[in-house]
């Protein structure tokens, strides 16, 4: 039939026309396009805990007094230098001279006081208000000197105030932090097409502007792993620092156009047990669970072999790490005997799993491992809002799987019975107080080792593995971080190889 043939050609023609316009443009050598799985809803790191905000804004657009480098060392940022009194209570910060915000206004000590007072205020919505709790007062000494007095010494203070939560903002532009932040960083906020991309443009007035190679950093938001993979393969993206699907990495490793990285993070993945609830209030039951777990099998199955096992609650790359992996060797028979001894063999234990791939996959494997040790294990996949409500707030669970991504978070075990672990021991709380107030790094590391040993000894949780940071990069890209010791990553050091 003639008609259909004509219309068929017409359709094909329209397709061809759409396709013919412009082949895929090669990425210009002065810009980079980076994929993020999660899109932030606001851009204010001081009022929202979304990790992507820090990943994009912190130490790129907004700066803090200090900054951590890739190995977690604290370096000067807006504070050029500082002195600490002998009692560890008084910090005097000398601020950088001649720094201006992206709107041209000058940065001075009043901005520091304003930012800290704002974060510490009663009605503050700062997501990690806890890092400011040791601060007694913030005083402006002169236009470029600030003094902070602490209530008690805080070993992590300089590291903590490098976070996005302690970003320095000006009172004049604070109202637009959520949608168009104005800071002092190497990049200024350029535009944001919600749901698609966010663009940062080089700040020509930045103090080290000559060293900033890229004029433009484009963040693309792609949540689906298959779509992310297609975007990389088609050249639409140059980098994907937190690549969500370990199973898709082999094709990138086999392709010389890409570099695949596996770096460390501060994220300990645990099989949390509700210590407040029987049978997990019994240390023998928790130890039996630890014996039932086979970390190697979990890492192989859930992470395709791409993760480092942990035996306690401390990252393997940290200076105080102790290897406690062999404390509870994997042995279903021992586990079974211990479950029988404790009178829980054959009972039902439910693992409520939040909707993260690492957790869902680990959940199924642990279910099989507990079953092999004589427990009637069940897995219940729950949605994130439900998890926050039922598990985190109401402590209504037996076991769950979760990554704790904050640095220096052993203090979680000192948060008392109302925290979702349902665990409290005054001895450990004392130990943590000593750790967090100890100024001498060697002594502190010793105490941290004791802390790890205590947590493993008492098998508070099942300790599984350190969440890796998997990245896929164009092989010609340079100057990005492989490891992720903090939530932010300065992009000023990125460049293209010649």
């Amino acid at each position, binding site marked *: *039939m*003639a*008609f*259909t043939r004509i*219309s*068929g050609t017409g*359709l094909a023609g329209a*397709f061809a026309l*759409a*396709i013919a*316009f*412009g*082949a*895929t443009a090669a990425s210009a050598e002065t810009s980079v396009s980076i994929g993020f799985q999660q*899109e932030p*809803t*606001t851009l204010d790191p001081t*009022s*929202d*805990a*979304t990790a992507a905000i820090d990943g994009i804004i912190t130490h790129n657009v907004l700066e803090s007094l200090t900054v951590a480098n890739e190995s977690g060392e604290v370096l000067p940022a807006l504070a050029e230098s500082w002195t600490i009194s002998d009692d560890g209570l008084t910090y005097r910060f000398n601020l950088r001279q001649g720094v201006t915000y992206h709107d041209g206004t000058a940065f001075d000590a009043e901005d520091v006081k304003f930012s800290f007072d704002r974060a510490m205020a*009663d*009605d*503050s*919505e*700062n*997501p*990690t*208000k*806890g890092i400011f709790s040791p601060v007694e007062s913030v005083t402006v000494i002169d236009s470029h000197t600030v003094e902070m007095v602490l209530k008690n010494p805080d070993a992590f203070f300089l590291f903590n105030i490098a976070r996005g939560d302690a970003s320095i903002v000006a009172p004049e532009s604070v109202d637009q932090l*959520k*949608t168009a932040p104005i800071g002092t960083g190497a990049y200024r906020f350029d535009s944001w*097409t*919600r*749901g*698609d*991309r966010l663009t940062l443009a080089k700040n020509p007035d930045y103090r080290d502007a000559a060293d900033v190679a890229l004029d433009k950093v484009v963040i*693309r*938001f*792609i*949540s*689906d792993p*298959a*779509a992310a993979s*297609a*975007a990389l*393969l*088609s*050249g*639409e993206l140059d980098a994907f620092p937190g690549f969500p699907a370990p199973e898709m990495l082999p094709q990138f490793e086999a392709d010389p156009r890409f570099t695949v990285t596996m770096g460390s993070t501060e994220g300990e993945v645990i099989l949390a047990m509700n210590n407040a609830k029987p049978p997990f209030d019994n240390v023998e039951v928790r130890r039996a669970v630890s014996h039932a777990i086979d970390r190697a099998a979990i890492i192989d199955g859930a992470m395709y072999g791409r993760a480092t096992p942990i035996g306690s609650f401390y990252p393997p790359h940290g200076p105080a790490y102790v290897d406690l992996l062999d404390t509870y060797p994997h042995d279903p028979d021992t586990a079974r005997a211990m479950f029988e001894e404790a009178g829980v063999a054959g009972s039902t234990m439910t693992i409520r799993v939040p909707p993260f791939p690492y957790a869902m996959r680990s959940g199924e494997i642990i279910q099989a491992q507990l079953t092999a040790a004589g427990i009637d294990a069940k897995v219940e996949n729950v*949605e*994130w*809002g*439900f998890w*926050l*409500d*039922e598990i*985190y*707030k109401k402590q209504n669970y037996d076991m769950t799987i979760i990554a704790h991504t*904050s640095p220096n978070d052993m203090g979680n075990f000192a948060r008392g019975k109302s925290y979702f672990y349902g665990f409290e021991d005054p001895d450990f709380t004392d130990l943590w107080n000593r750790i967090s107030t100890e100024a001498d790094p060697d002594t502190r590391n010793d105490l941290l080792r004791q802390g790890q040993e205590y947590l493993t000894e008492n098998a508070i949780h099942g300790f599984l593995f350190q969440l890796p940071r998997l990245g896929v990069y164009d092989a010609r890209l340079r100057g990005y971080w492989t490891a992720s010791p903090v939530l932010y990553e300065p992009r000023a050091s990125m460049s293209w190889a010649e």
Partner: protein
Amino acid sequence: MSYFIARRLAGFLLTLWAVSVVVFAVMNVLPGDPALTILGIDSTEEARAALRARLGLDQPVILRYLDWVAGALRGDFGESYSFGVPVSGLIAERLPLTFSLALSGMVVTVLLALVLGITAAARHGRPGDWGIMLLSQMGIAIPAFWLSMLLVLLFAVKLRWLPPGGFPGWGDPVAALRSLVLPTAALALVQSAVLARVTRSAALEVMRLDFVRTARATGFGSRHVLWRHVLPNALVPIVTIVGLQFAGLVTGTIVIENVFYLPGLGRLLFQSIANRDLITVQALVMLFAALVVTANFLVDIAYVVIDPRLREARG
């Protein structure tokens, strides 16, 4: 006829009101605290309480519902909990894309389905018919997200003709059109499979009738008979399915927008649910429901236009 339309209109408004109550109720029994979702698990209770107070979440439910409805009637859907900007703005920003996608999906679906369906009917029982039926069977069986991935692998990764996803905005019309080609194809190929089968059987039904034989006997060409006599008389079932498919198409964009990372309403809905941005979810669900209800309303009106007999019957 005006009585008929008035009755449909009343039903339309009543449905919307019922939807608003259900949506609001569901949102409020859903577990999950927006403040905890936004501030994260390391936040203090004090900070969460401050945020809840600012969002008005400490007010009684009834008061919040009345506030919401009063605002919605003025076109003010409140301020998004998580984005911190007016919900109406968020929707306005993303509506053009979803609208373009649904429209192009609909147009391609209908064109493709009519051509394939009528062709198959004309070649009833011959290889052309079997071929088209086989293809449409496959189209029905294949999920849209899987087809999307195949299209991306072929046209974006292998051939590099089209972008694998994303939407640059209508500021660059050529780039915008190019980025809509694959999503439209993924939506339309699957949807048109069903419609092609309906078109075919509706056409076959009509082709058996006497007036078609008469038309042929008068000497009209077979093409003329098919498109001018058969198709108009086969339209009622086709329009019914198109109306139903419109709902499928709108919800289909939710999946497609996520696969092709397009910044449309579907993706916004997805994000808002994950963020416990209840006020945005409410507005979006209302909008989607209103679209579907409106489509059904229009289909009812369309019957009357297509089939003069209904005009009298329904007075």
